[in-house]
């Protein structure tokens, strides 16, 4: 069992796949849970904009249908993050991560704002392309070691190639858009607070998790 996040507290047996929770991943899991709860419970903010050239201002309203859809996507994103936090299997992890990427696009895709949609489009392309290094990394791991189970890999005795780790990290970076901040900053102009926050939360969390995985395996 991996121990860099502390000793595992809880192991969920799920067929040939284990879900395990160390103090580290359970912290991440709980935070994802809390923010998903907030996304469900909160009403969206009404963003105030100042009319240019005067002292007039107006509040942007989020329509009900848009709010429903974005809330649905935020919840999907939260659930995918929850899955990625506990997964003890590399392939499952990559699947959850790509689900996070798609749900992130969904959260902003409903916004009717050209700048936001432009940024979301660029982000979407990167999120799609990033599945290649992501699954490629998992495939390299299984080809060179014959197993995908993180606890088994962590137990040692396997030589996981460095490039597989690099691919995994790069894939997660692409899905979560972590260091390529430009598009994410544009996307955050979208009104409706609790939903956009899920974009950033999920990408940070999957990034934190992949750091643990890469150090462990």
């Amino acid at each position, binding site marked *: 069992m991996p121990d860099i996040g502390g000793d595992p507290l809880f192991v969920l047996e*799920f067929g040939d*796949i284990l879900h395990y929770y160390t103090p580290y991943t359970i912290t991440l899991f709980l935070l994802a849970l809390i923010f998903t709860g907030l996304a469900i419970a909160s009403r969206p903010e009404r963003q105030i904009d100042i009319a240019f050239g005067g002292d007039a201002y107006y509040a942007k309203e989020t329509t009900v249908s848009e709010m429903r859809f974005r809330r649905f996507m935020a919840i*999907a994103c939260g659930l995918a993050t929850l899955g990625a936090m506990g997964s003890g299997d590399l392939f499952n992890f990559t*699947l959850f991560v790509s689900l996070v990427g*798609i749900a992130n696009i969904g959260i902003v895709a409903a916004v009717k704002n050209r700048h936001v949609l432009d940024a979301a489009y660029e982000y979407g392309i990167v999120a799609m392309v990033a599945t290649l290094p992501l699954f490629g990394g998992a495939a390299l791991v299984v*080809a060179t070691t*014959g197993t995908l189970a993180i606890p088994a890999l962590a137990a040692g005795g396997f030589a996981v190639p460095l490039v597989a780790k*690099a691919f995994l990290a790069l894939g997660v970076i692409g899905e979560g858009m972590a260091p390529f901040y430009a598009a994410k900053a544009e996307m955050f102009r979208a009104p409706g607070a609790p939903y956009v926050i899920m974009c950033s939360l999920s990408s940070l969390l999957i990034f934190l998790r992949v750091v643990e995985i890469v150090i462990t395996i």
Partner: protein
Amino acid sequence: MLIITRISRVLSNFQNLVALFAGACIIVSLIGILSLPLAFEENQLYPKTRLDPTSGLYPYDRGGVPFGTTEVICQYPENSPYAGYVTTYLTPLSLFLAENTLYIGTTIVAHPGGIIDEILYNTRGADTVVETSILFTAFAIASYLYRREEE
């Protein structure tokens, strides 16, 4: 102009995003190519030695007796005691097709009792669930955007 300002001007434009990511992918791939060859681990879920192009089940034939058992390498055999059984899970109709024609391998995923789905459900349960969730989410986004056009 400082070099730092130049770099940040490139980074801050989200139109350059795809190019930057592609660049990162190329660099990592080059490292990967330089680190070749990587050793291949033979000891995997299905034995790779028994592939038989003449079988009606090709390329899904992984050995084993229909309605009997077969050996599947599991990570946690104690959690999935029935894993071996499903490799040979075929309906009688499929078995008939497999024995008499060469086509079952091409239709295998699309008909009830398809081997691959069954193997996945039994050995790697969450995979199939998450894969379909990804598709479902993508469809949900597409249909929402399509219906918004009509408003």
